[in-house]
């Protein structure tokens, strides 16, 4: 079965710094990997998708990398702001299903 690990349950960083979140997966080679943001009491919101043939994808202050050899994706938020505080989930499609990581709760301190 597929398993996804995210580097830490919680991450605290100072405003203005770059936050780096890690997603590692096993036993599978997905065609793409997704990142979602989840705020308390709300459903996840899609942020970025990166395909297996893409090394890097950017969207405003967000950057995602995908290393299929390491089976790892890194999610970066540059110039972080307190409004970036949320839980970030990575997800990949495994057969007909989606498998989500447990999430990393990011807190950006002013």
């Amino acid at each position, binding site marked *: 079965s597929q398993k*996804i690990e995210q580097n830490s349950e919680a991450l605290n960083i100072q405003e203005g710094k770059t936050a780096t979140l890690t997603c590692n997966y096993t036993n599978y080679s997905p065609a793409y990997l997704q990142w979602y943001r989840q705020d308390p009491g709300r*459903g*996840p919101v899609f942020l970025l*998708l990166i395909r297996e043939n893409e090394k890097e994808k950017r969207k405003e202050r967000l950057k995602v990398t995908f290393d299929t050899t390491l089976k790892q994706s890194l999610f970066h938020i540059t110039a972080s702001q307190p409004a970036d505080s949320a839980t970030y989930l990575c997800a990949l499609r495994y057969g*007909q299903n*989606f*498998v*989500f990581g*447990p999430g990393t709760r990011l807190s950006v301190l002013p």
Partner: protein
Amino acid sequence: GAGVSQSPSNKVTEKGKDVELRCDPISGHTALYWYRQSLGQGLEFLIYFQGNSAPDKSGLPSDRFSAERTGGSVSTLTIQRTQQEDSAVYLCASSLLLAGGPRTDTQYFGPGTRLTVL
């Protein structure tokens, strides 16, 4: 346009009772997913509907759980004889899969139904 909606937003029930949770996906979306999220946990896949195909029920934790999707739109998740371990937030998501298009499966989630079984 309207996003995915779920009802009720909160449901408190007694152990042993049956509950029904409703999901209204985005109009025109062909795929619909149900997930369960326990406190502090990740999303647990439950069931997946795609068009008129037979649903993928492989994630349902027991035969007390069932779901249906009527007319390719609204879906209902039913939990029979609820147990305390069923307490969780139940999330629904929909996505649009275009025939012949690149596969992205971007999911649009509803706000969830918080189920509490006493």
